[in-house]
């Protein structure tokens, strides 16, 4: 069986699956249950100056009958006292010394940061995560994403922490920026040992059509929240790849954003993550999902003759290039397997109304036919087909060499 043991910027854990700083890591009770279930590590729900939370706090996006495609929250950091949290941190670390326990923090002044770091390190915690990400509530007070969105502030506050901390420091980045490399490089300059991404995305999940109030509602009003869950995974993967592929960025990355299954986790590793953090999936299904994360990734590694989970690191990121580097002579066209086709004709209408009018219907058959001379190989038909591997995209072999835009005759700049 493949080895899942992880060393993330010096933080060791039995596997790379951590709970993200969020409601599932609110208490020692929860985290101990999570460790018993098999989670390798946990990032404690953000400690900070006292706050009060609203009721209600969460709202979600369903797709057809699937709940929690996306989840949105307007909950703030921990609403329990620092003393209670520290007492429980001590207990967890004593009972589960081998699991990674990382403390998320968010403070205003240098003194507050330092005080918390000292008190946590005394308890034997494994590292810190700086919450520069929360896009709601705390940012109005100059914290959370207000820090993550301003590289200078990000660097300064990071340096306050790193000058004091002896344990590894992770900076958690907000995706609510136009260029993720700016705050990431600022964190690196500030002395951070790693980053984690993504925190939640600014969002309004929807409006209650009975009351015409946005969700979630607090006494008839709402506030924008932070979006997470399966819906945000593509955004997270892209930002992860941007950092992995940035030659100036050298720190390990803990991937966050919509991870629910072992496949999701594997994709994050392939895009360059060293550990991954999960929240929404646990809020939906509980800690038990880690069983499949562990066995799924292990089996995948075995299948690919890989010994260690780090063998996956960044393989796919290398294949994510600028558009202009893509081969314009490469061509695929769709192929429908008539044996598998259930004749729903969704491919036909998708191509006809939504793409390139390259699928035809014949008078005496319900099975659509690809018009190979006009098919551009866009994939749409294969994406809407409800049958596994019924429509495949088949490469059209040509003897042409790779041709990129820079060298293409249609490029006005090409000489």
């Amino acid at each position: 069986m493949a080895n899942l043991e992880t060393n993330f910027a010096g933080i060791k854990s039995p596997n790379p699956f951590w709970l993200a700083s969020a409601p599932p890591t609110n208490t020692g009770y929860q985290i101990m249950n999570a460790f018993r279930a098999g989670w390798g590590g946990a990032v404690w729900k953000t400690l900070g100056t006292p706050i009060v939370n609203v009721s209600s706090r969460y709202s979600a996006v369903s797709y057809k009958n699937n709940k929690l495609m996306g989840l949105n929250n307007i909950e703030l950091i921990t609403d329990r006292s620092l003393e209670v949290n520290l007492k429980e941190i001590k207990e967890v670390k004593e009972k589960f010394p081998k699991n990674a326990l990382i403390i998320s923090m968010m403070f205003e002044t240098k003194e507050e940061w330092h005080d918390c770091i000292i008190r946590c390190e005394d308890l034997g915690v494994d590292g810190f995560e700086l919450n520069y990400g929360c896009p709601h509530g705390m940012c109005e007070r100059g914290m959370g994403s207000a820090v993550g969105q301003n590289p200078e502030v990000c660097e300064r506050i990071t340096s306050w922490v790193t000058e004091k901390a002896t344990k590894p420091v992770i900076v958690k980045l907000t995706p609510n920026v136009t260029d993720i490399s700016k705050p990431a490089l600022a964190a690196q300059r500030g002395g951070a040992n790693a980053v984690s991404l993504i925190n939640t995305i600014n969002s309004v999940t929807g409006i209650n059509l009975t009351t015409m109030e946005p969700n979630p509602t607090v006494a008839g009003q709402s506030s924008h929240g932070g979006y997470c869950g399966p819906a945000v995974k593509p955004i997270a993967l892209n930002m992860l790849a941007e950092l992995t592929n940035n030659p100036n960025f050298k720190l390990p990355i803990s991937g966050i954003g919509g991870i629910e299954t072992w496949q999701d986790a594997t994709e994050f590793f392939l895009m360059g993550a060293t550990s991954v953090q999960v929240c929404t999936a646990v809020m939906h299904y509980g800690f038990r999902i880690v069983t499949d994360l562990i066995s799924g990734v292990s089996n995948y590694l075995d299948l690919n003759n890989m010994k260690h989970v780090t063998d996956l690191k960044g393989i796919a990121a290398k294949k994510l290039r600028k558009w202009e580097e893509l081969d314009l002579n490469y061509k695929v066209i769709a192929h429908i397997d008539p044996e598998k086709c259930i004749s729903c004709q969704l491919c036909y209408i998708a191509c006809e109304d939504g793409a390139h009018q390259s699928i035809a219907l014949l008078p005496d058959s319900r099975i659509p036919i690809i018009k190979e001379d006009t098919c551009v190989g866009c994939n749409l038909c294969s994406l809407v087909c409800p049958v596994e591997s019924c429509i495949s995209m088949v490469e059209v072999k040509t003897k042409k060499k790779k041709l990129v835009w820079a060298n293409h005759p249609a490029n006005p700049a090409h000489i």
Partner: protein
Amino acid sequence: MPDNSWLPIPKENIIKERFAKTKPIMTPSEAVVESSRCIFCHDAPCINACPTSIDIPMFIRQIMTKNTTGAAKTIFTQNILGKSCGQVCPTSVLCEGACVYHDLNEKPIDIGRLQAYATESAIDKNIRFFEKGKSTGKKVAIIGAGPAGIACAHELTVLGHEVTIFEANKKPGGLNTYGVAPYKFSNEDASKELKYISEIGFKIKTNSPVKEVKKLEKEFDAIFIGTGLGSSRKINIPGENLKGVFGATEFIHNLRAKELKVSVGKNVIVIGGGNTAIDAAVESSLLGANVTIIYRRSEKEQSAYNFEVEHAKKHNVKFMYLTSPVEILGKGNITGVKCIRNKLKKSEIIPQKGSEFVVSCDMLIKASGQKKMVEFFNSISKIKLGNGKIIVNKDFQTTNPKYFAGGDCINGGKEVVNAVANGRDAAHGIDKFLIKNKRK
């Protein structure tokens, strides 16, 4: 009736329990879950399989988006009896039988129950989608308030014609009221649906059998015949007049008319292999009888749908195939039936001499088809029949141009949904006839 061979009428709560809906109305969450499964096929096979061509993927999508009112309108636009059809249609051989999910070995979408869900919601809230059209001054008589007649009346009313339905029975509805299995569609369902539909403004005269058409011809500009079929066919063997021998149509009619409060024999024999035989058998079984269906051919030739046969088996109905009754036994009251075994040589039935045997029973139900109302049809001048069925053209016009017809009287006995389609389309034929294509 001999006392100990007949069963007491079950108590009301027991009847209610035993005759509970086999396909109950969905809850809103069931409807959302089920509708979410539909993949919204292009040119969907289910639409083509529906005799009334309801845009099924569209109404299912509307249920999914909780636009139940829109869903009901989509259904009623094609089929004003969409509620009863949702509940009584043999969906597994129509829309659901055509669902592409079969090719994936997945359970097809539960279209019938989704349809019943959306339509019931609109009927309960009395959300109305159609109104009486601008008056054309034309009057149409409809003979028979069954599904064909009701569908025709509704469509004609929308088109602006003045409609009067003449119904022989005490209540309108035809088979929906007096024929279909009550665990599919109850008396209450039937009267609710009829009230909803007829509120558009057509007249239904009940207890008004049409014996003489001359008067109607004078008063009305066109006449639609939707009389369905007649009484149960005789089986032409000795003993048919003994007490305890019933025709299936009459047995079921009585059962529905008495709101299921009828007594049946302890041991019931049903003769026949069609869906009506199954209904009569299951209903007898639910009333407490031991029931055996006797059918002259084998299981393969049986015209009842497989799912109906399975349903009967679930209710402990026994089947005796390749068997024909030769004599009904008894003195005054039936005591049994003498039968003979058959062999099949291709489709020819060859009774096996010397194989006769007697099955005792307290009641016998003949379900070997219904008579056609030939006598009545022949009383109308110039109407041509083929095999006892009224011959119509594509506009559902008979050979007497003033008369149109649809439903069981033209097709020999099909589903409610076929009758609805005929009635609706005949209304357009009548409209064309009455206003000579002047409508734009």
